[in-house]
């Protein structure tokens, strides 16, 4: 930890390059693992992966052809190599007189429905991102507000009530709260038509369809954030520098809103970055419950279909999202907390 002024732009750049390099290595490892799970595990179990992609009247010629077409006969490293080549320079699929050129970034074609993966990702990513960001907006506002209020009114009826609700929110799984909210607000009372409508069709329809998923997902996280905000706030309020702030003659709103919040928000923001990253890959339950056509839904379907290219594509995108989110958090952390140095 160097004394003196903050690290210069060169140090930040070097740091970024180092981190990006590490991220690239990480992505390669992830791809290898996914490939491994996909091709090695069935092989150990004595099952030919090719049989998963032929109909119920599978004739041996068809199985062999599928094997050729999907490159299942090639060694895994050759397949991985082809995959990477596709990402950067595109690749060409040729089988049985059917030639397909796949331009970079080529994530390949679905084994199941022959759809190119890249458009699937670009089509579905915004849905997941909107779900995550919208929910994050809600849970930050309500979670942090509830946490701060609870801390300031510790032991009060409000505090106890809020913390019980928060405990519920943390421990109830999304498929429970999700189905419950659907049952009550959508099917039962009919207040909200919780059906996904693409934003380009109708903004109000889209917004209406996103309300329940946002609220349900936000409830889960708001609960968590409220508890952590409360604990952090109470800890911060006991700090000497809060006493100093009061001794300066600052009003209580400034003491809480500026001095205490600044410190309280640091762990919250760290968590937010991680959670957003994880949500982009892990909103599967929410997307499934509400039939939202996002990445989580796609990957769930792909896993049950053993559709490797889709799994790989989604995994890559979501790993990237997690890595970027972590990097942003680290950078943000260095901005928020001057004691942190990028190294």
């Amino acid at each position: 930890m160097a004394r003196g002024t903050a690290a210069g732009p060169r140090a930040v750049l070097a740091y970024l390059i180092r981190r990006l390099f590490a991220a690239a290595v990480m992505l390669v490892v992830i791809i290898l693992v996914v490939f491994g799970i996909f091709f090695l595990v069935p092989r150990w179990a004595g099952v030919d992966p090719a049989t998963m992609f032929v109909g119920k009247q599978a004739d041996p010629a068809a199985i062999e052809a599928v094997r050729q077409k999907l490159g299942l006969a090639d060694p895994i490293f050759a397949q991985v190599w082809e995959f990477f080549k596709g990402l950067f320079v595109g690749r060409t699929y040729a089988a049985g007189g059917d030639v397909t050129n796949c331009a970079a970034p080529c994530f390949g074609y679905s084994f199941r429905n022959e759809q190119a993966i890249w458009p699937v990702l670009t089509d579905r990513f915004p849905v997941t991102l909107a779900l995550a960001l919208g929910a994050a907006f809600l849970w930050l506002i309500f979670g942090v507000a509830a946490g701060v209020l609870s801390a300031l009114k510790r032991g009060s009826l409000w505090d106890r009530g809020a913390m019980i609700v928060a405990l519920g929110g943390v421990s109830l799984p999304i498929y429970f709260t999700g189905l419950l909210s659907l049952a009550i607000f959508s099917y039962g009372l009919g207040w909200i038509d919780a059906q996904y409508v693409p934003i380009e069709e109708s903004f109000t329809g889209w917004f209406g369809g996103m309300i329940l998923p946002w609220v349900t997902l936000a409830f889960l996280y708001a609960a968590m954030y409220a508890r952590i905000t409360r604990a952090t706030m109470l800890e911060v309020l006991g700090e000497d520098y809060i006493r100093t702030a009061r001794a300066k003659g600052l009003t209580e709103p400034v003491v809480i809103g500026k001095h205490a919040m600044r410190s309280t928000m640091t762990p919250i923001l760290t968590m937010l970055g991680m959670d957003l990253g994880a949500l982009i890959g892990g909103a599967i339950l929410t997307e499934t419950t509400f039939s939202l056509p996002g990445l989580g839904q796609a990957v769930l379907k792909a896993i049950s279909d053993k559709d490797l290219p889709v799994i790989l594509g989604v995994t890559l995108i979501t790993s990237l999202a997690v890595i970027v989110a972590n990097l942003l958090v680290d950078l943000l952390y260095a901005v928020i907390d001057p004691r942190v140095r990028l190294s």
Partner: protein
Amino acid sequence: MSTQRTTGRRKQAAAAAAVVAALLSTAACGGGGNDDDGGSKNGAAGFNAANNKVAQASLAKKGGELKFAGAQDADSWDTTRGYYGFAWNFMRYYSRTLVTGKAEPGAKGAEVTPDLATSTAKISDDGKTYTYTLRDGVTWEDGKPITSKDVKYGIERVWAQDVLSGGPVYLKDVLDPKGEYKGPYKDKSKDKLGLKAIETPDDKTVIFKLPEANSDFEDILGLTSASPVRQDKDTKSKYGLKPFSSGPYKFQSYTPNKKLVLVRNENWKQSSDPVRKAYPDKISLTLFTNANDMDQRLINGDYDLDIGQTGLSPQGRTTALKQHKGNLDNPVSGYIRYAVFPQSVKPFDNEHCRKAVIYGADHESLQTARGGPVAGGDIGTNMLPPSVPGSEGQKYDPYEAATTNKNGNVAKAKEELKACGQPNGFKTTIAVRNNKPVEVATAESLQASLKKVGITVDIDQFDGAQTTGIIGSPENVKKKGYGIIIMGWGPDFPTVQGYGMPLWDSKYILESGNNNFALIKDKTIDGLFDDYVKELDEAKKVEISTEINHKVSEGAYYLPFVFEKFINWRSSRLANVYTTDNYSGQYDFVNLGLKK
């Protein structure tokens, strides 16, 4: 891959689902209106009103958007590649064939009627030559006429299994049993029409020359895999993403696993099509990931019907039966759900040991595990589905499964065990797909009742996505010792050939992708199939079908659970609704209309 690892989570989810189901039914009680069994002009037509009969035919009006919902997308919308029953049914919106099923309810719907052709085939006396003439005014979506070459090319695509895998290959087996033709994509001839078995002397005439007669050939031509495809519009492996339409509707947009929208094909002429009413202006299919959510939306009236046509999920079923019975039909699905005994696994090589299992099983509890008499179906007593000609239904019950031995017959089972040389019982393994909770439940039921007769079974849940690889390989089945496999089968087309040939004919025992799980090698049965395909007389065909069923059932290769039934939802908006045996008790999609 491990076959058990999702069980814990599934239990948790099931528990949560049960709680929610309870809440749902209460919520719905408050809001829902009451539909009675009796039909009304603007309401539901009544329970079973569309089951094997036409409901509210006169109320159908032109126009509107018919809304399908689905929990699963088609395996492919390419006519050559699709194998899901609902996909074949739905394909009739945008694809025509020389002949197809009649636009009539029940068994009549399974009868062949001319579609693109002016009449059914002129068949030569030896049953080997089929001649069709194309109708006037049949066109593609761009207005160009559909020619005999387009028909031939479409059929030839079945040969390109290396590119277009997944669909049925009956055409290939019948027209080119030796596999001489390599498919249009490897066809050296200029017009890519090198298949010798089909001749197209002019644009209107199609002649099929079969190496061997096959009395079900017109049924096979009624499959959507015999659809015409125009060569310049063939996008090969991508064709399923946007097929070129010959029917009354065409693809407007399609995102797999999300949404499919069909709009009117303005170049299709009602006068050229005796089968399709084509009432709605627009057909949409919205795909859900949460089947319960989908059922709720059906009940709410947001959608008209489930494209899957495999029945409501348990919680939706409960609500619907209570409050909206008039919106339900309870058709026979054409599927038989059963356990099958591979003869390669000892002691199932001995027919008495197989019979011991059949007698030992509690048929009623198996039926309950399948969902009971309404949602599950009648107790299965033999191996021919009620929708297939030649079936005698429950009247033929060689093991008295639906009567005397309904709850198992321990004494008889022990007798059979003695005869088999295993008086103290034996141990074996049940193989069951892990993604079908109902099948797992039947396996557990079977396990419990077999214990009473001294047969101990382990249950091995295998990855359902790898069904073909795991139980489709006789070698693997033998290695794993799967003495009992839980499966189900429905007819590809409703004849004994379309249902039973892949299951029972010894020439269908394959090294991989095998469906003759019992490994039946019975000269009599093979001979009966040979007779069947040569027999052109309908009455005699039915007779042979019955005989095949008797042979298979008496051979004790199978323990049938149920003749499956579903509870399907029909929205109050639907008119001209009826189930058809052509698609195993599904509604005839292409003739559905909406009320105004």
